């Protein structure tokens, strides 16, 4: 169970039916809509970023920054196909990768990195907590299943590249395989994931 959640904590109590036009309300500077978005999206952004950074403080900073950006720029999301939740996830992942690379460059947290490296690369938690009341849980289940359906060697490359912020050469070195193999596995994995994830629709209107 990820830290911070108590076993009997009720799932975020916002019915999907009440969330109509969240993006439009955000654009209209509705502060209540922002609070709703934060309640809805924080667990997912935190899960993603904390999984990547393995650092709660940094993860909270990143997530807070993502919402600040969302509040500031939601009106500039011109593309009608750009849905809110994927946008937040993308911004969060990019910032987490930036942090990972900066951390790697500057070696600011050498001690923590040593422990982190000793424990193995970051990975998406594959435990199956009963969070079925969590809005968006159905999406997680679908994505989780799609990722789980990948051959182990392809999933490992996706884990390291997409969620671990590793480069091709780092992955090749870490897994002891040629760089060309890393690229091929990533491409094959993405082809499968595209097909599996295509039917998913946004759950934050």
């Amino acid at each position: 169970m990820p830290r911070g959640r108590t076993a009997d904590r009720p799932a975020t109590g916002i019915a999907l039916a009440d969330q109509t036009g969240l993006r439009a309300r955000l654009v209209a500077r509705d502060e209540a809509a922002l609070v709703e978005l934060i309640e809805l999206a924080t667990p997912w952004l935190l899960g993603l970023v904390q999984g990547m950074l393995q650092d709660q403080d940094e993860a909270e900073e990143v997530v807070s920054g993502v919402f600040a950006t969302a509040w500031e720029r939601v009106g500039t999301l011109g593309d009608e196909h750009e849905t809110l939740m994927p946008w937040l996830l993308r911004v969060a992942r990019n910032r987490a990768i930036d942090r990972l690379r900066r951390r790697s460059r500057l070696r600011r947290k050498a001690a923590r990195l040593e422990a982190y490296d000793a424990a193995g690369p970051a990975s998406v938690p594959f435990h199956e907590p009963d969070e079925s009341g969590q809005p968006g849980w159905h999406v997680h289940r679908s994505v989780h299943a799609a990722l789980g359906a990948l051959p182990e060697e392809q999933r490992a490359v996706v884990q390291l590249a997409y969620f671990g912020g590793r480069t091709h050469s780092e992955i090749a070195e870490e897994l002891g395989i040629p760089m060309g193999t890393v690229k091929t596995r990533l491409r094959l994995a993405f082809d499968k994931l595209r097909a599996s994830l295509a039917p998913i629709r946004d759950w934050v209107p």
Partner: protein
Amino acid sequence: MTPHDWYVEHRAAWVAGSLDAREQEIFADHLPRCEECRAEVARLERELAWLPMAAAPTAPRPGLTRQIAERVLRRPPAWRRYAPALAAAAVLVAALGLGVRERRRVTEVEVLLAQRNLRLAALEDTLSVIRGAARVVQRDISMDGHRGGLLIFQDETSHRWNVVVHGLPAAPAGTVYQFWFVTESGMVRSVELPMDRGRPAFATVSMPPIPAAIMGAALTVEPMLARSDRPEGREIAHVDF
């Protein structure tokens, strides 16, 4: 394999963010110029948009969402956040502009001062010749009905003379007033004296570096640009010491 195939093969890596730094640069450089790659990357990103939700949710610690909301809502708008920096930049630009202008003025003043200093040094030098003169020679001269004078201050210490001519009209067209030293071995050409401003002409001249004794001086009217070592024109004054 065409060069473009490389980009096709690396689209997935671009979306995953796993390109090495150099590859990242190359791909980023290519993307704005290739509509096909842009479209494919956008499609890939769209189709993989939910992939981050493979990560299990993490419940925020108590109070975090409220803190985030407060932080975001209390955050001043971008223009206000950047206002101090913009104001500082404006002040800096203005200061730089002022600095450049002031620097230009300082340079102008420095040039003016240098010119004044040179002029002052020349005047002091002229005065020192006059004040240090061991001999002063004065002669009345005339030219075409104009009456004037020739004044020579001889400074033996610095071996220089200060020559003043006044009262003469401008030299006839194509001619100049020429000053000469008269030595034991003949005439030695010295300076031209302009008389076209209606004011006395001054010149500080060095005595010729020849061992022959200087016996006098002469003022003649010579053709302009004449370079002869003896006078050919009309003599206005001849002084024997």
